[in-house]
């Protein structure tokens, strides 16, 4: 009887119970944050707005453009919040995260904030002339020209990869490459061809929005709204 019962646990024996608990923890997090696709839609729309930023700056001027950008961001966030509260939250239900899940979220937020502070610092120092680009020797000219942009793209890819690892979600790796390379390609086109509309970034951001919408449609089909418990 001992071996008969243990035989049914052979698959579980290969994977430790702690690993399965971690997977359960990640699955609950993924379901709560990413399953409805609205996170993806928000991310994609923010980058679409960013891709329009240089064109609108030329049309509206820096101050008005910044104001327009903030209003657009507000509209996107309000619309997504409304969609979440009316459409997906009632289907998804409510979760209060455990201590370990909160710590995972905190680590991602810290990394994101660190990346934003680092980028802001670089731009601020460069704009007041305190930061000069290093004079690379022995590097090809194109690599020396876009050194900071390549670094920034690498940081974006690393950040999304970190998110992918923390949440165990494959499409976050793809988003890292899409946003990182889209941004780099846009900068290259802007510098070399004077192209103001960052269309590689717009294209990759639109792809992220489309993935989010597909995810949302799948979510709505998979999780019908329940009128009451039981």
């Amino acid at each position, binding site marked *: 009887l001992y071996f008969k019962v243990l035989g049914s646990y052979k698959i579980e024996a290969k994977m430790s119970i702690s690993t399965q608990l971690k997977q359960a923890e990640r699955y609950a997090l993924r379901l709560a944050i990413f399953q409805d696709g609205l996170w993806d839609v928000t991310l994609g729309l923010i980058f679409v707005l960013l891709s329009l930023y240089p064109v609108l700056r030329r049309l509206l001027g820096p101050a008005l453009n910044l104001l327009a950008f903030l209003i657009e961001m507000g509209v996107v966030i309000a619309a997504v919040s409304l969609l979440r509260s009316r459409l997906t939250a009632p289907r*998804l239900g409510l979760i209060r995260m455990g201590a370990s899940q909160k710590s995972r979220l905190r680590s991602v937020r810290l990394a994101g904030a660190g990346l934003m502070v680092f980028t802001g610092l670089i731009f601020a120092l460069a704009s007041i002339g305190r930061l000069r680009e290093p004079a690379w020797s022995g590097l090809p000219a194109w690599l020396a020209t876009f050194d900071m942009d390549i670094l920034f793209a690498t940081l974006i890819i690393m950040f999304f990869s970190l998110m992918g690892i923390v949440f165990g979600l494959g499409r976050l790796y793809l988003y890292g490459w899409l946003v990182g390379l889209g941004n780099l390609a846009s900068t290259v086109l802007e510098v070399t061809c004077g192209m103001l509309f960052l269309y590689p970034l717009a294209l990759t951001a639109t792809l992220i929005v489309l993935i989010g919408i597909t995810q949302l449609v799948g979510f709505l089909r998979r999780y019908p709204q329940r009128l009451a418990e039981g």
Partner: protein
Amino acid sequence: MAKAAVAADPSQALFDLDRTIHAPARLMIMTYLYVVDSVDYVFLTNLTGMTWGNLASHLNTLEAAGYVEMEKSFVGKKPHTLIKLTGAGRQAFRQYKGQMQSLLADLPD
């Protein structure tokens, strides 16, 4: 002496497992409740993929054992139930986890 012999018997460790937790459906519920602070009925249904009736039946068993507590309220006119592990439930799951780990650790491939 006889007691020591029983404790050394590996099959005894299996019989000592907490059967309230050991049933696959309840093990799944306990696992998810162990890694979160609390969830409502809808979220737990989505997590486990179980039907309302099945979930309610297993939750009642776990509640009767004192492993989960259910906080019932109304959101508007709709009933809303928040479910979480009790201290005893968390302790029982930890113990179950330790038992299973030591049982499976020496299992040959």
